[in-house]
């Protein structure tokens, strides 16, 4: 077997991205870097989702000159994961925005972005 199918590659890339995101989120103490870690995880998950919707030899599910209505059943990729990912991207963006806003507020309270400064409540 030669070159692995394209969706496998996307899937593997997505998984690696998630792992890199985990690593960044767990090891960096700087809140902005943690947020970047989360963004990477998010993107990785989106890639995984898109990859699982791929159909061998499929194209975008848009009916035009390239894809006739009759050929759609056999030549288009699964539209559902793509539709889900659109929604998921918006939600991911929203969460990132909220986290960044918190980062700003946290910086204002302690003049630092290091997580070490924010461990007040415990036990």
């Amino acid at each position, binding site marked *: 077997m030669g070159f692995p199918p394209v969706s496998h590659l996307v899937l593997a890339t997505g998984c690696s991205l998630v792992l890199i995101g*985990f690593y960044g*989120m*767990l090891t960096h*103490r700087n*809140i902005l870097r*943690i947020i970047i870690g*989360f963004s990477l*995880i*998010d993107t990785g*998950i989106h890639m*995984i*989702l898109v990859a*699982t*919707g791929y159909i061998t030899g499929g194209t975008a599910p848009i009916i035009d000159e390239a894809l006739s209505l009759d050929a759609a059943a056999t030549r288009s990729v699964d539209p*559902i*994961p793509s539709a*889900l990912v659109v*929604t*998921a991207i918006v*939600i991911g963006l*929203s*969460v990132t925005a*909220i*986290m960044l806003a*918190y*980062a700003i*507020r*946290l910086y204002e*309270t*302690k003049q630092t972005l290091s*997580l070490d400064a*924010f*461990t*007040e*409540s*415990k*036990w």
Partner: protein
Amino acid sequence: MVASLLHPLTIFILGLGGGFVLPLVYRLGKTWLKATFFLALSGMALVSALGLVRLLLGGDAIDILTAGSLPPVSISLRFGLWEGFFTASVNCVALLGALRLWPRLSGRYAAMLLYLIFVMGINGMVMTRDLFNLFVFLEIVSIGTYGLLSLEETPAALAAAFKYIMATVLASTFFLLATGLLYYATGTLNIDGLLAQREAIGGPIGAMALLLLLGALLVELKPFPANGWGLDVYETATDGVAALVSVGVSAGVFFALFKLEPLFAGQRNLIAWSCGLTFVAANLIGLRQRLVQRLLGYSSIGQMALMVLALVLLRRQEADGVESGGADVAFALVIGGLFLNHLLAKAGLFWLAGAIGAREWTSWPSLAGRPLLLLAFAILLVAIAGLPPFPGFWGKWELVNALAGSGDYGWIVLILFGSLCEAVYLFRWFGACLQAPRPAAVPAFFSGELPVLVAALLLVIAGLAAAGLAGISSFWLFLPLAAGAALAVIDPILPGQVKCALMLALVLAGGLFLSQGLDGMRGLFAALLLSGGLVIASAGFYRTDARPFHHALLAVLLLALPALLRAETGLDFFVTFEIITLASYFLIARSPAAAPHLLPFLLFSLAAAFFLLTGFAAHRAASGTDALTALGSAGADGALTFVLLASGFLIKAGALGVHVWLPGAYAEAEDDVSALLSAVISKVPIIGLLTGAYLAIRSQNAFGLAHGMGWIGLLTVIGGAAMALREDDVKRMLAYSSMSQLGYIVIAIALMSHIGWVTALYLVANHLMVKGILFLAVAGVTLRAGSRQFADLGGLMRSMPFTFVAVLIAVIAMSGLPPLMGFGGKWLLVQGMADQEWYALAVLSLVATGLGFLYMIRLVHGLFLKPQPPNRAELSSAGSLREAPIALLLPQYALAAAILLLSFYPSLVMEPIAAAIDPAFSAGLVWRGMSLQEIYGYWNPRPLMIVIVAAVMSAIALLAMLYWFRRKDARFLRSTGGKESDALSRFFAFYEPMLGVLVRPMASRFWNNVARGVEALGCLRRVYDGDGQTYALYVLYYFLALYFLGSAIPI
């Protein structure tokens, strides 16, 4: 038109549309903003509540289709009974929460729209039937939470919010991944579609998707140890938002899990372990927590874990095909009851905590000036502790019954242990509030008091509704509570003595009504306890102060006695038993001196109750019915039930070893309350023991069980007497004496023979009268002499002659000297033991009688005969040392008259007793083939009497001789310092060190160590190091653990 407005879709239109409109309305003015916000919120509550009503009246579930297509093509939602119940409850609480949060929301349209859409999001999570749509609603709820968390701007709160975001974002990320993978594995996102093909979801990817989905939902419910982020938010967020997270977000996530649960059928054990661990760990760690909101956080986490645990255990039973009658109702009661209980009580407590404003419970102010708020506080706490009549109680009852039905006793122990810890930390908080010196600042009415009060009121209503569903025999069970409520309403306006008269009248009327138709032993007990209770309670006239809520509680307590006797099922019995416990608790709590003893009292009472709960559940599991009469016809396998029930009742009776709660509670209550508790209420466990004793008789190893119980009784007799003898405080001495006397009754019951039971009843009557007199007499002494210490008292014979005579009669009646009743009782007891050939027990109980003599002598001598201590002389010269008030003397003499009557005409009581004891039972066990009438005729007391008196006298003579020879011993003189003025005092002082060996406070030390050990387990809290990254790591490990355990153990 109206019908379509009330369609559940309106909830979303109102939530979203209202949210979108708010920024526009904001420009019109504040009034418009407020009106729109509350209109939308109450509209949502109204639509869901009316929808629920429609379904309850038999309407069909509504399927809401969108986009004009059928699922799975388009998203659909469902509004069925469960959905209606969850949305209506959450929306009502959200409306109340908005009131509470109003000072923070007011004027900020952004916060209002977040709140509105957040609430709609919870409704969406409950109603949606599409997995991805569930994700969207979860995110709506999460983002709403993140936004609302910023209402509190302290650095700690912002940091906590960030940790919360980190953890929940991880959870929702996995939710998204799981959704995508499930779609890949199944080709659908429709929940019904997924449930329909759940057997077919297989392969590594399908399994992985299910585990990740499960993990995401569980993490959102904050499992131990991956829940530090949730606790930090509970601790630091403003109380209104913390309450929303605790009850709102959790409700949405729980319902999602509830819907999807069949998908996780293979993982039920895993879920149960995780939730069981969380429930116990949260409540253990809560024991060491001082911050109120964090404490409530631990409790919240525990409650949610309990709900999930209950869910999976019940569903597992269902899957195993365990048949039990009314399983649907039981399921509804468990899930619905626990949910509603948590929802209202936890939200109410968060709001109350915020309205009062003290961060630590140790520094809570007193609510004494705000009786309504105090009442609401008590209701909320009692509800969370899972006590009747609140919904959580019915839920726990059904849950334990169901678990006993499938033999899951391990889970019962775990659940009850966790509940006990939870009750401890919650009631410790209540105790601190009662003791607090500083009055609370008056909270604002609309945003502070109202939501809490409404939550408490809703709890009461929900509890009564649940009671109906749970199948209690009849609503007369709640008559005591109703009478108490009626007296509580008029409590603030009437003077104390008027309330006392009203209470007595109410108890008399209610008691007569309740005891209608009771016959046999129950009728006898009802007559005895009710009349005794009324006589002793009438002593309350001697207090002229208002005594807030005292009379209401007294009415509950006294009326609960006939209600208990009227109980037909284990449930009836248990509910009334708990009501008695609670009423006693609050009555004792009214005395400031009792504060340190409240917690042990409640703790041991609850432990006792939990034994009973399990016992009744075991009974129902074994016999298939909850009827108490079935206890009498139980088969040979009733031993477990008996041991459980007997353990519970023995704890309540203060058996040696588990007696540590008793002296403090009995002695430190108000004086007339002590009399009532010791004389009347202490008979409640005796009733229980008699009810459950048939089990032991029928069981295979009846003899062993009964004999064991006899020994426990004997040890209690001796231990109680020894401790009484050593006690320098008169009331505590009487308390120990009660314990000792109850021991005799336990022995008598343990005889399991006709004569034994006759004796038991006889002793009950005797003890009731004697202890009533003694405690009331001491009340008079304390009132006049101002002290309860033997060292301060003496020479009262001259100033209080009537009290002296009453005490003398009581002491003679109690110590078993002829000719008064006590003698008959002792005689019968010894006879019974001889019949059973329990000679060791018989001999030892005679020795114990000797000890009893000694402390009785000390009582009479110490109060009345020995000279007055010199430091007290000014009392008599000031004229304050005079006879006790007539209100105290009258009941004493009424009781004394009863003693005399029954002593000289024993058949007056013996006859009904003999007749009362179940003839069917006695048939095989009649003593020497004679009926009791004959026994009494046959009774020739003289020889035995001589033996007893001789034995006791020689024992005392021996002690006196020993004392005589060694009294000049230098060591002894040094130890007492020669302070004791008279011979008898010196005699007691001489033997005190020896008694000291006997009564080392081993039990207290043991229980203190247990408490310390349990609390030490709270060091588990070290896992919460406050670092958001650590928490994120825990969350990831939680997923990993779930994944590897879940894929390794295909259960």
